[in-house]
């Protein structure tokens, strides 16, 4: 803490030292003006001058001694500076003490002696002051001129040469000038801050009081580079805050040199290119350089930009500090002459202009004004024709021209050939013929002509299968059937008799109303596509209406669906868990149906499914019972099914049970559960499920 305070006081020396200097010079001038005069006021002022000078000199000397303690200065220069400073203070004190006496005739000290002492004091002051300057700014600073300094130390010319010539010596011609520019004002033989001298290569190698400062090959371990890269507010950052800093390029140069150093005689061509390092330089403008000079172009008229934006134009600047504009009117159809006229107000600034997919036509395009800096023009999918291309001469700088999906023809080729700056042109899906393309390519071999793919050679894709939609799968009186395709403009052709549709089959225009059971087949057709796979669906008529349906036992919660009524809602399920299935694990499925009135029945259809992975199998036995009173049931039919096989894919199935007609209104349907997963099953012997989604009585 105390040490810090001392060093702080020491640092005040360069400032405080100016007080005695100024004060002594002023006193000297006053003394000379006064001459041998005896003006009381003058004498008094001179007296005060000596007083202030003496006190200030003593304070400055104390500070100076504290500063010198910190070291880093050339001993010889420092010694002379120190003694001359002390001499000045001593003389000033003496002059102050004797000043009053010179006006007394009887005093032994004559005025001429006083004069000599004062002159000596001033000489000591000037010489000591100069030595102080040498300590701070380095030897010979007094006679360095602005121009000689630039020539000696500026790294810019070195950098410029670096990219072209390759036989320069890296250290002598690039690195040392850089050090001279940014480091040697403190790290010189006189001042040698931190005992480091950077005026030549041996000094650099020797390092400072903390040891060597470069580890060649490893910039990140070299103190020279590390200290430069530290944040500015770090105490050990170099050069110290307030001194001139290295720019990004110079930092990279230094790292590049340390990394690649082999000897002090290295030449630029011994190292990998420096240009790559430059690219990542944040402040280097060259990599972000714009393709032409925009300094003479004013920023765009804000009012016109606003008006155009209100008309639907999208207008963006290309980059910060760049007046050029990217102007687009795309996917819009309200372009008018007024808007085109407005573009005139920003015609100097337009760099890209995009009218793609707009209503631009020859008449509108004709009214466009010249745009001297337009580089990219997009006319894709507009109504322009060959006629408009003649106006392209108004854009002398045009490099990229997009004409795809326009009706231009080979007639435009001479015009395209006449556009001297054109670098690329896009003519996919235009009327330009293959021979036309060859013609341009021959005439302008450097022009990139993008003609795109030939669509006729592509392999046609198959249309996605259309869908058949109904509210229910079975119906009582009639049912509405709708068809749909992913492509709204696809043609849907169908048959109802189960035959495969052809392009001549009935075309679907509006939903069908079906009154009889049908077997629907449906195919989608569309220009440019392979016709779709056949979608098919059988729609069956439902049986007698059921008044009530009950289950002998509630199924587990997961498979209760909407209750027993689910079995007669005319909707089939598609997979277990879709909320349309009733199912039992291990137990049999027993349902009791009551018809609205007694009917002669001869067939019962039961919807069921098998999915081995989910332990669901078709029933092993189906039994139908009927009753006359709803209490005692008699079996009228029983059917057994073989054990499911391993390779049976399963899926949805409708089990049909036919039997001798019987008149009744009470029916019981029993689906016997397989009980256990079959022996081939991965988890054989585990309790299996039986599923049912629909029962229909006919």
């Amino acid at each position, binding site marked *: 803490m105390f040490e810090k305070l001392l060093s702080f006081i020491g640092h005040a020396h360069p400032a405080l030292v100016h007080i005695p200097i100024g004060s002594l010079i002023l006193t000297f001038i006053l003394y000379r003006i006064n001459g041998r005069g005896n003006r009381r006021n003058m004498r008094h002022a001179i007296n005060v001058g000596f007083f202030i000078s003496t006190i200030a000199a003593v304070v400055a000397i104390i500070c100076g001694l504290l500063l010198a303690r910190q070291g880093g200065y050339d001993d010889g220069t420092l010694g002379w500076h120190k003694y001359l400073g002390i001499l000045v203070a001593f003389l000033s004190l003496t002059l102050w003490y004797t000043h009053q006496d010179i006006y007394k005739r009887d005093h032994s000290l004559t005025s001429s002696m006083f004069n000599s002492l004062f002159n000596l004091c001033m000489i000591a002051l000037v010489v000591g002051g100069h030595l102080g300057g040498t300590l701070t700014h380095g030897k010979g600073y007094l006679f360095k001129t602005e121009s000689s300094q630039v020539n000696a130390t500026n790294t810019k010319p070195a950098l410029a040469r670096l990219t072209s010539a390759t036989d320069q010596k890296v250290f002598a011609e690039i690195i040392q000038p850089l050090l001279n520019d940014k480091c040697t004002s403190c790290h010189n033989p006189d001042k040698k801050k931190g005992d480091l001298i950077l005026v030549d290569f041996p000094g650099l190698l020797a390092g400072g009081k903390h040891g060597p400062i470069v580890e060649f090959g490893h910039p990140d371990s070299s103190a020279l580079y590390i200290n430069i890269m530290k944040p500015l507010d770090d105490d050990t950052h170099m050069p110290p805050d307030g001194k001139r800093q290295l720019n990004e390029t110079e930092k990279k140069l230094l790292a590049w040199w340390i990394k690649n150093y082999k000897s002090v005689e290295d030449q630029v061509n011994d190292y990998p290119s420096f240009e790559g390092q430059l690219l990542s330089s944040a402040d280097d403008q060259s990599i972000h350089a714009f393709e032409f000079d925009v300094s003479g172009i004013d920023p765009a008229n804000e009012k016109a930009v606003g008006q155009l934006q209100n008309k639907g134009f*999208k207008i963006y600047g290309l980059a910060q500090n760049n007046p050029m504009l990217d102007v687009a009117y795309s996917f819009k159809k309200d372009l008018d002459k007024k808007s085109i006229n407005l573009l005139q107000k920003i015609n100097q600034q337009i760099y890209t202009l995009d009218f793609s997919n707009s209503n631009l036509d020859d008449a509108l395009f004709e009214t466009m004004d010249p745009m001297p800096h337009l580089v990219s023009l997009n006319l894709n999918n507009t109504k322009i024709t060959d006629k408009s291309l003649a106006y392209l001469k108004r854009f002398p700088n045009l490099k990229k021209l997009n004409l795809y999906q326009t009706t231009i023809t080979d007639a435009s080729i001479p015009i395209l050939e006449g556009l001297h700056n054109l670098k690329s042109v896009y003519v996919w899906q235009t009327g330009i013929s293959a021979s036309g393309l060859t013609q341009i390519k021959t005439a302008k071999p450097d022009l990139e002509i993008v003609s795109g793919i030939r669509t006729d050679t592509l392999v046609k894709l198959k249309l996605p299968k259309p869908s058949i939609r109904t509210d229910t799968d079975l119906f009582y009186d009639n049912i509405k059937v709708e068809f749909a395709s992913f492509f709204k403009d696809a043609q849907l052709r169908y048959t109802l008799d189960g035959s495969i549709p052809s392009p001549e089959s009935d075309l679907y225009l509006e939903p069908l109303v079906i009154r009889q059971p049908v077997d629907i087949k449906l195919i989608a057709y569309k220009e440019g596509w392979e016709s779709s796979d056949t979608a098919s669906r059988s729609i069956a008529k439902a049986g007698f209406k059921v008044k009530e349906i009950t289950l002998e036992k509630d199924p587990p919660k997961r498979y209760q669906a909407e209750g027993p009524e689910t079995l007669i809602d005319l909707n089939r399920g598609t997979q277990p868990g879709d909320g349309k299935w009733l199912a039992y694990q291990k137990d049999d499925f027993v349902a009791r149906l009551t018809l609205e009135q007694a009917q002669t029945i001869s067939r019962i259809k039961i919807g069921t499914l098998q999915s081995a992975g989910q332990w669901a199998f078709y029933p092993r036995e189906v039994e139908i019972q009927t009753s006359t009173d709803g209490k005692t049931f008699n079996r009228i039919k029983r059917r057994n099914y073989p054990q499911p096989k391993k390779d049976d894919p399963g899926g949805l199935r409708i089990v049909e049970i036919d039997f001798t007609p019987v008149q009744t209104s009470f029916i019981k349907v029993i689906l016997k559960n397989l009980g256990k997963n079959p022996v081939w099953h991965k988890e054989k012997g585990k309790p299996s499920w039986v599923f049912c989604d629909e029962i229909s009585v006919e």
Partner: protein
Amino acid sequence: MDELRLLQELNVRKLQMQTRRHFLQKCSTGLGALALGSFIGCSDSGKPLQGINPLSTKLPPAFAKAKRVIYLHMAGAPSQLELFDYKPELAKLDGQECPGSLLEGRRFAFIQGVPKMLGPQYSFKPYGQSGTYVSELLPHFSKNVDDACVIKSMFTHEFNHAPAQLFMHTGHGRLGRPSMGSWITYGLGTENQDLPGFIVLVSGGKTPDAGKSVWGSGFLPSVYQGVQCRSEGEPVLYLNDPKGMDRNLKGKLIEAINTINEEALDTYGDPETLTRIEQYELAFRMQVSVPEAMDITKEPASMHALYGTSPGESTFANNALLARRLAERGVRFIQLFHWGWDAHGAGREEALNMGFKDRCKEVDQSMSALLTDLKQRGMLDETLVVWGGEFGRTPMRENRDGKVMTWIGRDHHTECFSIWAAGGGIKGGIAYGETDELGYYGIKDKVHINDLHATLLHCMGIDHEKLTHSFQGRPFRLTDTGGKIIPGILA
């Protein structure tokens, strides 16, 4: 009279209830608003906060070669040794034991003990004028090599999928950083105010291992996060009006909600409120713009044939076609995720000799169609397309649990992998970087993920060192403390 008395009483009560706590509360919101002011940068413009749309277009600091990015990510990491990095020397070592020097001190996700070397499983040929080597698995892409730059010397630090994907997309292997797309929309805004500036399309709707954080906005305001659109069914969920509510009514509803939100913004100054306001308005505009942009039925049959789409499904091909439609409409950053590339050989689907071939088929035609299509529309030179996974695969055959596996596969590898980039600002028809003769280490022009990001931002006109956001006391950037532009791949 009674009412008046009641009102007076209410006022008195209100004043009585005003406590020191209320005062302090107001203090904090006042300070919050000040903080927001400096965050939004409105203090010098003098504009009221409400008028600022965080997605409005911002000028790039420098002239940008690319206006937008389409990033195709192959989640699971495709094998560079079967696609781009041709290693005839490795073929000679096929079946031999891996030299110990390659295994010493290394950790693999699954390889144990001493694995066997595995030669390239497919043949390679040079294609195009550039003679870039491409595997037989990419017959379509091999026609586009003169437009693309294949970088063979990518490397990463993360050898598990989720951290590696985060690293690839956010520049950091842990959660919490903003993704590339977020940084870019944060820096440049969006060109089309009716569509999100950052759209994500996922094949089969399958989110990558790292979850949605790979398109998250991290500590940036959430208005910059990627918006996931679906290519099957409704493009954006919950965007349609509910039954019985028409668009006008919805408009009024949003207006009312946003009036309240603006009051909240005035009071609390939370940038997330601003995000909320903007998202309501954007969603309202998207009701019209999104169905139009996402409708691939508008595309002619030839385009479907070119990309090899499967209309009605959410395949990579459909998404690639959508990506082009979105690019045409000015979306700034479009990110596609495909999945299933993790070819360990632990199952049929993830075997180099089985599922891997299918994956290549799923993307080859459509990714090359995307390049062809962008080019013929004059958009490739201003659209930057990048394709790649999150890391590479080992030159050794995977031996899970130290056993020979039924299927052929390779383990995760961080030292080198291949990606390609094409279009805006990128030099086409070159292969950049080299790996050793076994394809184990990058040996020349190694490219760190930060370097790739720096280069990407450079192409967009952004200096990666200047695009920063202050968070938790220090400025962050996509490349954080690293990143060098790769001059060798710039056009």
